[in-house]
């Protein structure tokens, strides 16, 4: 789970930094002159280490962005409209308020297990956040639902079950109630 990996990386690095601050604070109990050349040399090493870490991080992650790849065609397209305060999710395009209303009362869309699904996400009013939660409550994918734009989110579902959609952009008084749902079988 990427969230927990990120959390532990944060804990390790931040913890190391805090230890350095504690060490430096304690060092003032025994004041003495420091060797500035040694300090500059240490800074130079720190600079190169940080540079390598950052370049490694960029190299490892920039190829894994969630943006659609041209040669990766979806098996199924799903249309999503956000509107205060529900997501309309449908197999067919949603072009007006009536169609949107109908989708919010319709049975959940069924998606085939293992297939690459493209969600075409937009909004009929304000910005919303289309956040897909797995059956065990993990945020597995998201994109913004923005008026005037269609964001294409591609997800390959490997677990069957009921997926909830929560709004992840403050959209008004009913923000925390805003919902959508679909099933993967």
């Amino acid at each position, binding site marked *: 789970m*990427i969230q927990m990996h990120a959390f532990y990386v*944060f804990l390790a690095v*931040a913890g190391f930094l805090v230890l350095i601050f504690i060490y430096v604070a304690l*060092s003032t109990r025994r004041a003495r002159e420091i060797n500035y050349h040694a300090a500059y040399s240490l800074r130079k090493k720190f600079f190169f280490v940080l540079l390598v870490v950052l370049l490694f991080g960029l190299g490892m992650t920039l190829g894994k962005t*969630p943006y659609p790849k041209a040669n990766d065609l979806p098996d199924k397209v799903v249309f999503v409209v956000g509107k205060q305060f529900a997501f309309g999710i449908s197999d067919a395009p949603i072009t007006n308020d009536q169609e949107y209303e109908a989708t919010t009362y319709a049975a959940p869309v069924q998606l085939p297990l293992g297939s690459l699904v493209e969600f075409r996400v937009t909004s009929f009013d304000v910005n919303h956040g289309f956040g897909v939660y797995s059956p065990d409550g993990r945020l597995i994918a998201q994109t913004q639902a923005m008026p005037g734009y269609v964001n294409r989110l591609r997800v390959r579902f490997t677990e069957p079950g009921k997926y909830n959609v*929560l709004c*992840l952009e403050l959209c008004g008084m009913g923000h925390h109630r805003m919902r959508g749902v679909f099933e993967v079988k």
Partner: protein
Amino acid sequence: MQANSIALPMTEPRLWTEAEMAKLRRWTLIWGVTVLILLPILASLGYFMRMFQSSFFPTVRAEWFYAVLTLHSLGMVGTWYVGSMAGVSYLLSKYTRPSLAVSKINYWGTLLGVVLLVACTLGGLFGTGWYFLYPLPLYSQGVWAPWATLTFFIALAILGVCWTIWTLDLLRAIAKRYSLSAALGLHYLVGKSEPEVPPIVLISTVSLVVGVAGFVAAVIVIALFGARALGVNVDPLLMKNLTFFFGHILVNITMYLGVGMVYELLPTYAGRPWKTNRVVAIAWDCALFLILFAYFHHLYMDFAQPKWVQIFGQICSYFLSVPAGVVSIFGCLALVYASKMKWTLASTLLFLGIMGWGVGGIAAVIDSTVEVNFHFHNTLWVPAHFHTYYLMGVVLIILGFIDHVGKELSGLQERPAFSKLTVALLVLGGYGFLSMFYWAGAHSVPRRYAIYPHEVAQGTLYARIAFGFITVLLCGILLFLWETGKRCIKAFSAC
């Protein structure tokens, strides 16, 4: 902790008369005391929000949560911005002559803006969050009235005009003594060390130049909202870019101005110099460039943005950590290491503030990875990292500055036991409170939810634990206010 007397900035006689200096000190104290009054009020709003999320107020309508959220976040961002500006103005007075009249106008303008913000949020339930993302203010669903929206934008316009004038005035004051290239330390890049430019001048110049760009973006946003009200179609993606450009810059320059204050003050406690040199100049000039583009990381989940922009955003966000880490944080550690450090309440808070900046920065860099942001965006990880470098970063720095000034002007020394207790409560309460944000973010709990639905019901438990830590934090804040407030009030009679 030792109570020590630290010299105030030695003002050059030709820059200020004694009467002017007295006025400057008085206005700095007025700003400081105002910040000290606003801090517990705005912190209490945050306390209310975590209680709301703990389901302690089941009969209160959710609209109140979002209105309080808006006031808390705007109030905090504004308070620490003016706090850092007031602090930097005071410290820059050693080298330049910021206008006292501009400071006064800003004070009254800021107060008027705050009154209007209170009216539209607590009076009108305006609840869009602090970045009022277009076009939400125009879609109230009947919760807030048009007068509340209008009042909100009038408040923003007043604050924007005042703060822009203040920013320009500080740049004017710097320009009276230093050319732009000198103030940016460009001569250090080619190996010259004359004229000597104090780090606070360099950092302020970088921050203020970027700040002007941010304020211009804010003006355009407000104008485009006005155009939309007149029926003109406005591009939501453009509005989002402008809003986050402004918001990201405002928050970052507040932090940078705070760091500038540390460059100026901490050497007086450590007994060692901290001067501008080639590396420091390169670092801050790089920051000037990188900060303009790092804001793209706020729009990673807007897939309509060109992909190269998103990648460029991640690269800029990553490399922004180099000047911060290698130069400022390392420099702070080298300054203090094995020095004859005078550990007072002020110096401890300044030191801890830099540490908080570093800790929050690490979390921010992690979140600025597109792949990670895909799972963290708008979860509680986001308030986790920005509260870290705000609450445990620039807030501690500004509190340290206020304590420094209050002690010097009043002559009242601190009580070491109270200082130790204050620091312990602030650190335990602050980091404990933040830990629940991080943990909740790692467990997919969304930010800005008045009530947690069953899918993320664990958020309620985390909010309750956070509530306990905030109680500890508030005790630390109140103790700080009691001790430092006394010194500040006595200081008024001394100037």
